[in-house]
């Protein structure tokens, strides 16, 4: 084990996978100088500019080229900088990457990882703050991952790179500096795709959450008046760990889903609908969701705050359920 930041954990994961498998490479803008957040710092020096490829500002082709490269056997890690810019490459991800294996009757596969940093971060406003994980969970053929801790960013990124299908990998920009223990041993640190993490046991309300909201929910749980919270970090949104969620809610009888994304049409709806259907009768309170209002993220901190879920809001919502 060693203490690493969320950012360094991802860097180490890529470096190890690139050492292990010569087919792995990364492509995106500014990677040669470490990438916009420093997630690739030092990698060009170790692996050279061919495998840490500096690209033009061509999101559609960064993604599309990765699809072609993956189909003929390489394993690209695609850097989109901000998930918002991935909106310039949706055809390539959704019509091509996600469907190629299927459309071609299994003749080819598209083993790529597309890193799409999400979330609110330093007053970045409406075009640099979105969390659209719900979109990708809706698309057959895509795996969707949203790690909350350094250990998970290490272990899940490695699993994503080893996955034979396209993975939408959403790191949260506000988590880059977060520190945590990360298993130093390369193979033991792998985190399987599709498994949730039980963050904390509790009795009264099961909170299902992911990404940056895990910390927020933990803070809420520590507030004095908060009921006893069982916290599940979903980690992978598709496939999501239904079993872990249902087992927990069966026990607590209450479920609150918390996500940073807009609540309307967010992935919380999928979870709420599933829990509501599977545990009808076993619920002590209606399943609730807490997500951002359906407004763009504004620039001024006081306005941006309207889109933010804060611990007090989570605590209040949990209290209202018991």
């Amino acid at each position, binding site marked *: 084990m060693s203490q690493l930041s969320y950012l360094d954990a991802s860097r180490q994961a890529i470096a190890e996978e690139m050492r292990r498998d010569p087919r792995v490479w990364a492509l995106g803008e500014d990677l040669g100088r470490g990438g916009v957040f420093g997630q690739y710092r030092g990698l060009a020096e170790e692996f050279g500019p061919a495998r840490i490829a500096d690209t*033009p500002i061509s999101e559609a082709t960064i993604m599309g080229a990765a699809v*072609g490269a993956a189909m*003929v056997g390489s394993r690209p890690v695609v850097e989109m900088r901000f998930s918002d810019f991935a909106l310039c490459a949706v055809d390539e991800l959704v019509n091509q990457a996600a469907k190629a294996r299927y459309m071609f009757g*299994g003749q*080819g596969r598209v083993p790529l990882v597309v890193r799409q940093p999400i979330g609110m971060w330093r007053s970045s406003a409406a075009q640099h703050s979105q969390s659209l994980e719900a979109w990708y969970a809706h698309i057959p053929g895509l795996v969707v991952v949203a790690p909350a801790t350094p250990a998970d960013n290490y272990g899940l990124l490695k699993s994503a790179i080893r996955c034979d299908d396209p993975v939408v990998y959403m790191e949260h920009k506000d988590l880059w500096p977060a520190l945590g223990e990360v298993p130093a041993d390369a193979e033991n640190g792998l985190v399987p795709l599709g498994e949730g993490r039980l963050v904390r046991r509790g009795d009264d309300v099961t909170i299902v959450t992911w990404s940056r909201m895990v910390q927020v929910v933990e803070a809420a749980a520590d507030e004095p008046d908060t009921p006893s919270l069982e916290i599940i970090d979903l980690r992978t949104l598709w496939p999501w760990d239904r079993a872990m969620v249902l087992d927990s809610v069966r026990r607590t009888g209450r479920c609150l889903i918390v996500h940073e994304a807009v609540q309307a049409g967010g992935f919380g709806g999928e979870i709420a609908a599933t829990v509501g259907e599977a545990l009808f009768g076993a619920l002590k309170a209606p399943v609730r969701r807490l997500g951002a209002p359906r407004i763009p993220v504004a620039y001024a901190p006081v306005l941006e705050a309207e889109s933010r879920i804060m611990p007090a809001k989570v605590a209040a919502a949990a209290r209202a359920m018991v």
Partner: protein
Amino acid sequence: MPAPLVDRPGESRADATGPIRGNVDRARILGHYRTMARVRAFEEAADRALQAGHVKGAVHLSIGQEAVASGVCVNLDRGDFIVSNHRGHGHTLAKGADMGAMMAELFGRATGACQGKGGSMHIADFQVGMLGANGVVGAGIPIAVGAAHAMKLAGDPRIVTCFFGDGAINRGPFLEGLNWAKVFDLPVLFVCEDNGFAATTRTRAVTAGPGPGARAESLGIPSTPVDGNDVLAVDQTAAELVRLVRAGAGPQFLHARTYRLRGHTAVDPAPYRPAAEVEEHWRDEPIRRCRDLLVLGGLDTDELDRVVADAEAEAARAVADGLAAPHPEADLAWTDVQDVDMPGAGRPEARA
């Protein structure tokens, strides 16, 4: 440069030899004749099958454009890759794909090239390096470029050829993909099949500037124009461009002018162009031109007729086999989605 005739791998070439034009021998031209006849026969058969209700989805026929497919693909090795567009039957056949599997795919049968999952717009045959048609105009360009990128990264000598239409040059991926190919100096040959139309629209009405070649050159990629209905010209030009690409000279661009003799889709009567214009272009169509050349070169018309008859017989067989082939099992719909979610085939009920 060994340039095998890949139109029917394994089949014996025509035994006629000797030069006809330039230093191209009759066998090679006859090979083109055969490839083009096979494409034409396939398209005609597919069209008839569609009228008869055996093909459910949209079909874009390449009738009139066979010379581009044949002239380019004859210069490719089986291991080389091609990426195609919605009008891809010709490219696919010329690259060596099995006609029966293609027709079965149009019919949505289990024996189809994609097991019936893709249909005409998603035909692929990875065994012969055919990485897929595409339902999205221009989307094949970045894919081709990426495949070439992977070849270069791996030090793999195979090259990639990317077919697209004149309509695709107005989509962003054209600029992005060509720029990328040149920046990374990739082994890719771009082939713009300029048939004058994008669906019902004349491309010149929606295309500014001097055209595809000038755009390619503005991105640092040399462009070579060619009469796309002259299979020999296409062959000879493509041969040189393929040689350059293989030699590491970076991406090349072939601008082939041709004409789409049929509607945009098989059910489009194309009322937006005068009958006289179409008729005029029928006089210029590549198979007749190739035949004239062969006859001029001394080939027996009976032999040529036999080639056509063989092609038609093959297409008829493809239709018959396709119609006799089983429909896929419904459970097949659940396979090849993604491993992590659906490790085995089967509906969720079955998996629960």
